[in-house]
């Protein structure tokens, strides 16, 4: 059997049997996105590397933390990474964000501005991940900038809606609406298209209802 041809869940099962080769391939596939995510949140290499180490050492020890039925591995591992990095950022913080971060000049490091300037030398491990990445970038580019900014302040900077409202000097209700609409549009663009299969229970009716809500406001 060749590990590089195995699916992510198969690799994790093999890691449960302490197969070093499976871990190598999993690291090769995901270390770059995990590191990049942690770096985006923390903004320094040392901190980001600590998060990557934490995530992969935990994966080696407890690969069964990932439950296949709940969604794709990449989505799960990036959630774990983001949460771990946000914990660190919150522990460190209590100093305000700088002006450029708030005004979305942060977009210099954001997906939108990034696409053409991205260092061509860094590539993802598989064509599948590369495709998924393009899909997510497109979905993010398609939502209005204010919605994207509100979501990214929560997602990458760990701000609550109230903190975002205060920081952007925007009414809390507006921030809430932006986050809801933006997330629902992302959901419509991405659901069932990123990661394996559409999850159980996410019925077309619910999606349709949410989509029309999102479009109608």
């Amino acid at each position: 059997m060749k590990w590089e041809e195995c699916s992510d869940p198969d690799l994790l099962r093999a890691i449960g049997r302490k197969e070093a080769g499976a871990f190598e391939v999993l690291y090769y596939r995901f270390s770059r996105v995990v590191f990049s995510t942690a770096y985006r949140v923390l903004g320094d290499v040392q901190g980001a590397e600590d998060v990557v180490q934490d995530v992969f050492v935990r994966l080696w020890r407890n690969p069964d933390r990932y439950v296949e039925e709940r969604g794709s591995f990449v989505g799960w591992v990036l959630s774990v990474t983001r949460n771990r990095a946000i914990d660190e950022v919150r522990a460190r913080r209590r100093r305000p964000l700088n002006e450029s971060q708030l005004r979305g000049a942060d977009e210099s490091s954001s997906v939108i501005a990034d696409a053409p300037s991205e260092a061509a030398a860094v590539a993802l491990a598989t064509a599948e991940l590369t495709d998924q990445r393009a899909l997510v970038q497109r979905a993010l580019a398609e939502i209005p900038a204010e919605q994207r900014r509100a979501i990214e302040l929560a997602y990458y900077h760990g701000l609550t809606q109230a903190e975002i409202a205060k920081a952007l000097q925007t009414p809390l209700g507006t921030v809430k609406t932006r986050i809801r609409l933006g997330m629902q549009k992302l959901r419509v663009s991405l659901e069932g298209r990123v990661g394996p299969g559409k999850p159980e229970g996410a019925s077309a009716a619910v999606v349709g209802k949410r989509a029309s809500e999102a479009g109608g406001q």
Partner: protein
Amino acid sequence: MADETPMSSAGGSRHERASQLLEAYVLDALEPEETALVAEHLEEGCDGCEDEVGVLRRVAGVMALATPLRETGAALRQRIFSKTVGDPPAAVQDERAERGAGRAALVRLWSWPGLGRWATVAASFGMLAVGGLLAWNIALQTQVDGLEGDSSRLEGSVLRMEDDQTETVQALGVAEARSVETLELVRTVEMRMTEALVSLSAPSTRTVSLTGTNAAPTASAQMMWEPESGVFVMIASGLRSTAGGGAYVMWVDTPDGPEKVGHFYVDESGRGMVSGYFKHSLSGGMVISVGHEDDLEIEAPSGAPVLVLAQ
């Protein structure tokens, strides 16, 4: 737009209030009391909201895929691997407890496919070395078996046999240590290959074909070359195996004469691979050739090439 406080819609049912908060809930952007409200509602067993949270979590999860990519360093990889798979001292100890430890290490190496497809080819060169170790270990084992037979027939040889067995065990220890070294070597090769492949993913990378000459009519090769960094990888097939000795050397003609840019070995299947770098212009009448050499220290091709740049 009117400012809403979290509890301003307190008149609605808990479901109604919670369902408005799910998007922010998965982003951890709620105030503690709002988070608690959603959590309690989910604990009540609301399937609709639970499904919705599941879907939104998946969306939030993949969002990070869009983040600008950065390369990770080899030092980080080493740090992580030393805390997970690669714990050489412990591994060596375990194997020492087994008979035929050298073979165990070898099996581990065979079943160690963490290499990319390309690196697997590189690994096969390491295999050649390890293959030799296997033969050696089996030979040693045979020697032990033979000695055991002798001991039952010839009491006088018992002492000598024990000495030999001690030597055999020591030899197995050395073989095993070499297997571990080979494993390290293969990992280094893989790391270099990954670095090379990263360079070769640049849009400026060119693909160049080489064809076999009359000396090797079945041979052909493809080379990827990134002019900026000079990194190249070439994969050749249809060549005669180097099992009989020597190696294939890759040459690039420069104004100062031929320059050796790499050498490689070819396995039984006739395939081989070489990576390296050179920084010349291919367009200016550049000549690339590959020839078989017995001596790798030579400064110019000793015979006719087997592969040349396709026209």
